[in-house]
């Protein structure tokens, strides 16, 4: 996926997705199926989410945790049945995720649990993944299918007949807009991509993908999340299931449950910065400039809001909305105010 397509600028692409509809080729992401009688329990060991109570053909954002509660990767898990899950993980984490899954599947299958019914992971090599995003995404896709897309609410998925192709379509995305993530078998990717990229749909590159997700307050793994951040610090406690907070039983539970109880020492927050945009690595200080409080992990001048937005980690106690801090850009302190995320209002189809 290139930064941009042709001569269309990042801001024009960004605005097109906010106002109309764009398509992202995210086929570089890793799609996998997990199958087996104990698949639910296995994935509840690898993630802190309540997958047993997730309804079939529903998705959730979750995290793969290491023993310290640090995030190995963030992922979207879709449950098709108690013994069948579809999982999308980040391309940048491909190798380490693969090693982690291999190790954990082997460990699970040799345990007493796994002997009740082994789990297998199948990587969907060379499958396509297209994200159709924007307020006009639904009307565009509806013209290509007899399936009533009004029934397909945010966070659910279905196999949808699209002009003769039967495709896995999940309602959601990485822009804060209504939209669909469409998984395509290798032999059909080109044809489906052509079908989904006619006007008003525009091809959107990585540049706009980043500014759209940041306005939506969503994390980029490697920037805003890494193996030393926990879901509690990252403001992702909502992915930890209610029952899981009692029972634990997932990798990294000790740290995560303790942080849930005692509160984390650092937290991911949103900022609006005056003057210059703050970028990744910019230090956050108390207004006096004396005390260092944290660091910016992503920041841009927001095309939608016309303000400099950023997310970063800040010392607990300074994390409340409206708190004034200072961010250092080019050796000057710039005033910044803690601002709730998403920065721009989400526009999901909830039926």
């Amino acid at each position, binding site marked *: 996926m*290139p*930064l*941009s*397509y*042709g001569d269309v*600028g*990042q*801001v*024009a692409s*960004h605005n097109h997705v906010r106002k109309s509809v764009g398509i992202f080729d995210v086929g570089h992401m890793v799609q996998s199926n997990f199958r087996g009688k104990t698949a639910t329990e296995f994935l509840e060991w690898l993630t802190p989410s309540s997958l047993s109570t997730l309804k079939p053909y529903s998705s959730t954002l979750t995290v793969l945790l290491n023993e310290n509660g640090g995030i190995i990767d963030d992922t979207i898990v879709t449950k098709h049945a108690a013994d069948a899950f579809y999982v999308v993980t980040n391309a940048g984490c491909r190798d380490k995720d693969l090693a982690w899954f291999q190790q954990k599947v082997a460990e699970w299958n040799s345990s007493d649990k796994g002997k009740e019914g082994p789990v297998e992971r199948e990587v969907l090599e060379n499958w396509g993944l297209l994200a159709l995003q924007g307020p006009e995404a639904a009307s565009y896709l509806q013209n290509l299918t007899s399936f009533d897309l009004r029934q397909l609410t945010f966070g659910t998925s279905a196999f949808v007949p699209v002009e003769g192709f039967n495709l896995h379509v999940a309602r959601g995305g990485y822009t804060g807009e209504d939209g669909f993530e469409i998984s395509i078998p290798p032999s059909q990717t080109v044809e489906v991509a052509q079908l989904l990229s006619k006007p008003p749909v525009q091809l959107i*590159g*990585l*540049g706009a993908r980043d*500014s759209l997700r940041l306005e939506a307050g969503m994390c980029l793994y490697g920037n805003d999340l890494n193996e030393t951040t926990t879901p509690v610090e990252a403001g992702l406690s909502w992915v930890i299931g209610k029952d899981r907070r009692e029972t634990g039983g997932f990798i990294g539970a000790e740290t995560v449950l303790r942080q849930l109880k005692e509160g984390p020492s650092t937290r991911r927050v949103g900022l609006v910065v005056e*003057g*210059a*945009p703050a*970028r*990744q*690595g910019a230090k956050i200080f108390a207004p006096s400039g004396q005390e260092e409080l944290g660091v910016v992990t992503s920041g*841009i*001048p927001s*095309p939608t809001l016309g303000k*400099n937005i950023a997310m970063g980690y800040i010392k607990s106690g300074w994390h409340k909305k409206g708190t004034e801090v200072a961010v250092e*850009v*080019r050796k000057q302190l710039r005033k910044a105010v803690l601002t709730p995320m998403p920065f721009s209002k989400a526009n999901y189809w909830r039926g």
Partner: protein
Amino acid sequence: MQTGLRTLFRSSRTASSTPRFRVAPTSHILRAGALQIRSLHIKKYTSEHEVVNFDDETGVGIVGITDHAQSVLGDVVFVELPAVGATVQQGDQIGAVESVKAASDIYAPVSGTVEEINETLSNEPGLLNKSAEDKGWLCKIKLSDPSEVDKLMTLEEYKATWE
């Protein structure tokens, strides 16, 4: 990401397969023609993608970023300029140009005193994309050592650094 223009170029080149480096050649031809008429003006370039339009009568250089630089940066949304009256040394960081994608530091191509800054850019940063080497100029520097201009790159030498 905060980076010199040069670094930005390298990273975008590897990250993108699209032909983002095309510069409309006609603009250079037109300007070359204009230069021949106004022979007092010498236009020179730096490897960091700054351009100086030097008037040897007044000793003032008009500093900007190159048209090539603006095309790589994309939509410029914010420009930070030096203070009027500031004394700068060649190579000093004197400001920054920011697109949504990245921030790029601007380095003084020549030493001297900042006489004027382009105030229009604070309200209309996009002017840098429309007219980088003309209306989108950044600042005017009164040179303390005009011979520095001689050591800067010609258009051909500059183009050879990225073409």
